[in-house]
């Protein structure tokens, strides 16, 4: 069982490294140019429903997005863009 676990872990890690190499580290323009609104719609619907920007204040959104950074494992760019969008929309 231990050998199988190690094999599974190694296989998963190898697959992830391979995928990363194939995809490359450079962010395509189509991804880099995504707006905060688009990122909000894509990421905030995955776990819960996309939140209404009017629900919290600017200060609360600043803190809430840090909570989402660690809970939803969002990228740094996503956190900043979504926070900017939510604060501009409330």
């Amino acid at each position, binding site marked *: 069982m231990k050998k199988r676990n190690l094999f599974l872990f190694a296989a998963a890690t190898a697959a992830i490294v391979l995928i990363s190499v194939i995809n490359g580290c450079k962010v395509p323009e189509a991804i880099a140019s995504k707006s905060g609104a688009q990122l909000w719609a894509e990421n905030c619907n995955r776990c819960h429903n996309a939140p209404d920007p009017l*629900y919290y204040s600017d200060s609360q959104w600043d803190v809430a997005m840090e909570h989402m*950074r660690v809970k939803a494992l969002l*990228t740094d760019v996503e956190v900043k863009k979504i926070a900017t969008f939510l604060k501009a929309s409330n």
Partner: protein
Amino acid sequence: MQNRYNTKLNVNHRLVTLATMVAFSCTLARAQDSTQTAENQKPDAPARRIQKMFVPGFLTTQFQYNDAKGSPSTFAFSPVGVVAFPLVKVSDRLFMDAGVQLLQSGSGATASIGELVFYYKINPYMQAFMGNFSPRYGVYLGILDDFTNRFGTGVAPVGMGHGPQNQNGIGLMGAFQTGYSKLSYQVYVANGPQMNTTDTVSPGAASSAGKISYNSSDVNNLRSVGWHIGFLPLSNSSLEMVFSGEYTPNMGDANGNLTHVDGTTMAFGLNYYHAFGPLMFRAIGEYNQTQVENTSYTYLDPVNGKTTTSFNNLQSGWFGGITLRDIGAEKTFVRSLELAARLGAYTSPTAAPWGAPQINQTTVTLTYWFTWCIPLNLEYDVLTQSGTANKNVFSTIVYFRF
């Protein structure tokens, strides 16, 4: 046996040391780059206080009707529970996340800490954390619970939740873009689980030897190593595939019982959503298992005295479900409805004294969303298990988020 113990100790610490070296090497690389421009550095500006605090949370209660053939039906309102999440953003790098739970108990209440975690942002791709945390495990543990569980929580889902519970430890986490895909990760070292190695059984009860529990106190000399990898292959982040686990080289107790026994828990899951025209579709599923190395367990039976038993200590669970919501409907009432259906099962070590036949669960839930985060769940569960009467449970749950 002593050699196997040392081997595990060395492997465990080597992995941790390697992970730590990789993490800090990234930080050192950035530091090197900054020293080359030291001549052009401006004097440090006075630090601007940006500390912010925010306390969201929710209040929940439910009504439940239970029906099983051969047993009287029961229906009752459950105790009210309140959960608050004190969140403190100390600076752009420092953040604290906590969870405090208050559950009504008669005319009083019992309080408990759900989480208490401190985060430090090392760079845009990595954060260090320390404290009492709920590890990311599979699709649900560490992230999806309470109002985000679209299948309802009236009856504990049998196929989920079988993984690392809250633990004290330290770790690294983060996410980054890889081309059109995204990767997220979490690695940690924690006190780990405790296996019940010996037991004194009460009359009429079954021994719990071999059962696993998580607590915040250290009970042995080795730590557990855990990981979570999330892969989002699609550019719109609509599909997430996860692989999580925790390896514990020493499942024994502080008295030295069964210290040579190790255990591994793993989960594979996926979470997918897509709007097909006006219809929002979601599919969520997971398989998890926990395997403890083969060993013998000794317990004190009230009838037979000292008893030794051995069994394959493997438990597994799975669930799969879909939800549908008409987000394009003209009527707000219709737009706010979401229909969910889920199948799940849990298998305990059948040869264990505490083992039982597989439990199967079928769940259908209709949710009305008052707002994006305030649901009213109408949940119906059917639980079947060989040797026991089927249970039919109807639950009404509300999560009032604030």
